[in-house]
């Protein structure tokens, strides 16, 4: 299998996961500050 074919799913799910993590972390920080 051509490794280039694995890049798109890794990019798509990785970017969405990173954004979800940033939102969760910001929410957690906001909760801690309250």
């Amino acid at each position, binding site marked *: 299998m051509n490794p280039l074919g694995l*890049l798109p799913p890794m990019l798509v799910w990785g970017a969405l996961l990173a954004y979800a993590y940033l939102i969760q972390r910001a929410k957690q920080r906001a909760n801690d500050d309250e």
Partner: protein
Amino acid sequence: MQNVDWKKLIPYAVLALVATVVAMSIPPAQGFREPTLAKILCFHLPCAILASWYVIASGWFGFQYLRTKRIEMDHRVAASLEIGSILSGLVLATGIVFSKAQWGDWWQNDPRQTSFLVVCLMLLGGIALRAGTTDDERRARSSAVFSIACQVPFFFLTFVYPRLPAVRKASFHPSNTVESGGIDLWYWIGLLSVGAVVILICRTLFQSRVSLSAQLRGDA
């Protein structure tokens, strides 16, 4: 890292895995230089459609903010701009991989690549504009106006410019694959399964981002 509730992500991760397996299992498409890599489309196309949706949504929520002055609409503008820019970045990234696999070069100044890069930069400009303003009301107003103003260049760059005869002639990128029936059943299955999961995840992220804005502002 330990403060994030990872258990919430498990159902989404399972769905993403299933969609990836479905997309990766579809047979090679004939007519491509690298038939086994045509399946990159299953990730590229849903991101492109959804990125366009979020750009239009940001303009709509901007209009709603100016009309009603409800700060919740501004939270939605922020979420739309952020998710739209992530998705348009993914459109460019998956497009670059497809370009390398099928046309031999990572970036070849194809009109379609360049026009979407401008859309991506416009969205990042919207985020920078928000980051550069501290006053809530002023930020909401300028962001709403920006999102509405972006609609004209966005529609031109996405729907008009790539279909101009001279541009279409110069571009490798097809503009009417779906309309012309150029996608077979296997590709529809791959596109719809990845598309459904991306839509579901982005919808959840959107709601999460809106509730975060409300929490940070003290509305929640």
